[in-house]
């Protein structure tokens, strides 16, 4: 439903892309009222018509009516609850799911009661309101007001509940422990089944099935231990062999349930692990500033042994060639002829498959300086070789051995870097030159990209972080004219003298190492001081930026975009919600500083929002902006002119009025008035891996606190 306005021809062409369709399964309702009726493709793909599919059939009211209706309806979370209950037959641990979404318990109870009275007629209405599910989730997501209130999320679970769990762990009888653990697992399973987003679009994970199986298992769990052996249930294998009798067992169980999702980003953290993460750790592998992990391809052997909850085995067969045979053998055919035997400096892809791989590089560390990138493999450290290790546990053990807090000196590391095939150049040509003409390239001819031919071995001597910081203090630093910032955002002015490259303009360079609340403010103040220093264009460096809070990234981006209606990204959630995140939602934030890096007034974008949506700028006046997604829609049906229109008209007027003797200087003035400063963004392989963002964020805070303490003691930092 929310996607209906974004349908234009470019979207329609994407619809024919099978990969897109695969994700759109279960979300068909959101496209089905689109202009080009792509629902035929989508819904036929989605064989068992899901409740989400029926949604759109029932509710396609016209725009304005609906938007009025929406505000008067019951809060959207009610529909979330109702759908959840419909999906699972009974209500899965009501207290568990998303307590932070449902603050009002009394209301929630009322819903449960209504749920019990449900008749078949009611279901239609419920389906109608499911369309607001995504609204609710993303309302929560974009609810910056509450995010600023820095609440302890551990307190979302009332302390007494936490207390109760640990009380029964410590002082309770065997039965108390069992039931407390069972409740915990139930909570986890319910959260996973309602919230987990499967990037295959529902092929690898079926939330209804997932909870149903758990429910079955839970029932059989109580009957007797002999009977449940006959029951074919994946949870038999996931739940630890000793049942849930002790704390260790339940931790093992939870870990294996989460790992059965086959998602490398999802994991269960115990109380201790969570605390460890907050306290931060070492500087990664050998203290070099690189995070090294067991290779994902070597872990495949392990996951095959583990039970998975994959439902559609046929899909797997169809779409992915078998892991060992298919893709890798295809790659091996293309392997460099000089591989393995003849040239000792080249390793084949199969040879490196068990070597540990670099998953993240911490910005401004020695690992970055010597040019380690995400995806490099570690072959050897000093005399210790990783090549002999065969399974995941051995590699992990070796890695643990090398991961320590305070290595000092220089490490002699042998690494293997990817060698790409020639056609894997990242810039693909969209046009083919033939018979003296350029033709658009047919899609099928698209050459497979990023084929790794092999790995080239090289030796590096890397000073550890401790050594590097000491060296840096002794070094004489070059002092550019304007420099500033902190660990998170730092900037400097590149005047023609500062760079070894020749350029005529002064260029502002801003490096963003992560996205957090202080990075947005840091970015804005960096731009302000560089503007003052007279920067004419900008380079924004997000290399090795491992991510962070998504709203902050969109905040930062929105400060460079004028049109309040331009879309920053689209989000797809587990319930089939598809929502454009628009610029204007971020303009309403008090942190937002206007439309930067332009010759126009800073307030121009904000003024337009104030004109169109005064409610945006009021506290708590958040409404879903989804019906304003398409500029075309705005022009055609509502007569609202997008921000660009004004400038285009100005240009046209200037050109039309003075056609006889076109005043070029006037035209140039209009153009320059509307001009924006040029910006280039630097990216690399490390851009976007968010493995460790959290712990680094904490490290930074720890650093500040440390500095502050030292400052009080007047030692300096």
């Amino acid at each position, binding site marked *: 439903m929310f996607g209906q306005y974004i349908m234009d021809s470019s979207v329609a062409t994407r619809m024919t892309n099978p990969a897109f369709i695969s994700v759109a399964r279960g979300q068909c309702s959101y496209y089905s009222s689109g202009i080009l009726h792509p629902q035929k493709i989508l819904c036929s793909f989605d064989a068992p018509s899901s409740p989400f599919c029926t949604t759109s059939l029932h509710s396609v009211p016209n725009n304005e009516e609906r938007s009025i209706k929406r505000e008067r309806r019951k809060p959207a979370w009610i529909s979330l609850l109702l759908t959840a209950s419909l999906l699972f037959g009974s209500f899965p641990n009501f207290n568990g799911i998303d307590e932070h979404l449902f603050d009002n318990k009394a209301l929630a109870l009322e819903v449960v009661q209504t749920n019990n009275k449900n008749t078949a007629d009611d279901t239609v209405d419920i389906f109608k309101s499911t369309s607001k599910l995504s609204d609710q989730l993303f309302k929560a997501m974009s609810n910056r007001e509450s995010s600023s209130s820095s609440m302890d999320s551990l307190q979302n679970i009332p302390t007494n509940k936490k207390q109760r769990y640990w009380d029964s762990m410590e002082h309770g009888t065997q039965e108390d422990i069992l039931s407390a653990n069972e409740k915990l697992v139930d909570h986890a399973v319910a959260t996973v089944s309602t*919230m987990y987003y499967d990037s295959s679009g529902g092929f690898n994970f079926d939330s209804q099935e997932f909870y149903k199986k758990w429910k079955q298992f839970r029932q059989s769990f109580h009957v007797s231990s002999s009977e449940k052996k006959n029951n074919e249930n994946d949870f038999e294998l996931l739940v630890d062999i000793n049942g849930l009798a002790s704390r260790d067992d339940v931790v093992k169980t939870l870990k294996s349930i989460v790992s059965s999702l086959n998602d490398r980003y999802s994991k269960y953290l115990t109380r201790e692990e969570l605390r460890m993460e907050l306290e931060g750790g070492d500087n990664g592998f050998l203290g070099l500033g690189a995070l090294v992990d067991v290779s994902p391809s070597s872990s495949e052997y392990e996951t095959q042994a583990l039970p998975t909850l994959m439902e559609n085995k046929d899909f797997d067969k169809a779409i992915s060639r078998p892991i060992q045979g298919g893709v890798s053998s295809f790659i091996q055919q293309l392997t460099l002829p000089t591989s393995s035997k003849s040239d000792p400096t080249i390793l084949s892809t199969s040879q490196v498959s068990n070597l540990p791989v670099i998953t993240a590089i911490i910005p401004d560390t020695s690992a970055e300086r010597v040019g380690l990138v995400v995806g490099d493999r570690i072959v050897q450290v000093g005399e210790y070789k990783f090549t002999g290790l065969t399974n995941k546990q051995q590699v992990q053990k070796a890695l643990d051995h090398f991961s320590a807090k305070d290595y000092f000196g220089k490490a002699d590391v042998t690494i293997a870097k990817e060698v790409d095939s020639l056609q894997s150049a990242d810039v693909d040509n969209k046009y083919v030159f033939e018979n003296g003409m350029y033709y658009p390239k047919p899609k099928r001819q698209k050459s497979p990209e990023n084929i790794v031919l092999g790995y080239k071995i090289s030796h590096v001597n890397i000073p550890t972080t401790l050594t590097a910081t000491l060296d840096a203090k002794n070094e004489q630093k070059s002092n550019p004219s304007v420099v500033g910032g902190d660990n998170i955002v730092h900037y400097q002015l*590149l005047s023609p003298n500062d760079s070894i490259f020749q350029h005529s303009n002064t260029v502002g360079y801003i490096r963003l190492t992560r996205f957090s609340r202080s990075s947005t403010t840091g970015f804005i103040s960096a731009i302000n001081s560089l503007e003052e220093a007279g920067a004419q264009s900008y380079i924004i460096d997000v290399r090795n930026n491992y991510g962070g809070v998504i709203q902050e990234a969109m905040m930062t981006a929105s400060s460079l975009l004028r049109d309040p209606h331009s879309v920053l990204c689209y989000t797809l959630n587990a319930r089939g919600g598809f929502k454009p995140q628009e610029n204007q939602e971020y303009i309403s934030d008090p942190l937002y500083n206007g439309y930067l890096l332009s010759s126009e007034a800073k307030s121009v974008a904000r003024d337009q929002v104030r004109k169109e949506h005064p409610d945006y700028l009021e506290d708590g006046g958040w409404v879903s902006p989804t019906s304003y997604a398409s500029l075309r829609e705005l022009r055609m049906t509502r007569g609202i002119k997008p921000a660009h229109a004004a400038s285009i008209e100005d240009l046209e007027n200037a050109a039309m009025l003075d056609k006889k003797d076109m005043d070029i200087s006037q035209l140039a003035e209009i153009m320059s008035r509307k001009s924006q400063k040029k910006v280039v963004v630097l*990216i690399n392989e490390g851009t976007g891996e968010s493995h460790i963002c959290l712990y680094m964020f904490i490290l930074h805070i720890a650093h500040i606190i440390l500095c502050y303490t030292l400052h009080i003691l007047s030692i300096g930092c």
Partner: protein
Amino acid sequence: MLISFYATRYIYLASAAEVFASSLHDNGRVALVGSKSFGKGLIQHTFPMPDGGGLRLTIAEYLTPSLQHVTRVGEAKYDSGIKPDVRCDSKQGIPQNIGADLCVGVALDVLESQGG
């Protein structure tokens, strides 16, 4: 104190740098220089558990403004990551003195050619 810093409500972790780069690029605001990005494209949230632990789950995916996937879809061998307009390896390392960085030099060339 540290815990309260971390545990802000509704914190959604993602490969935020990719969101940043793609949202500006697809709206025609910036040119991208460098090498192809990691391609995560998923959003995580840590749910608190009754035992005081946390359950970190992937809860959503994002598409770029031009409706491209950033993550790999399923097991399909499908392109992931954000592609640069002008390619430049960072395998030679990022020096402390930014003026000596090769990719910064390429970026300066791009700015120059745009008349910036």
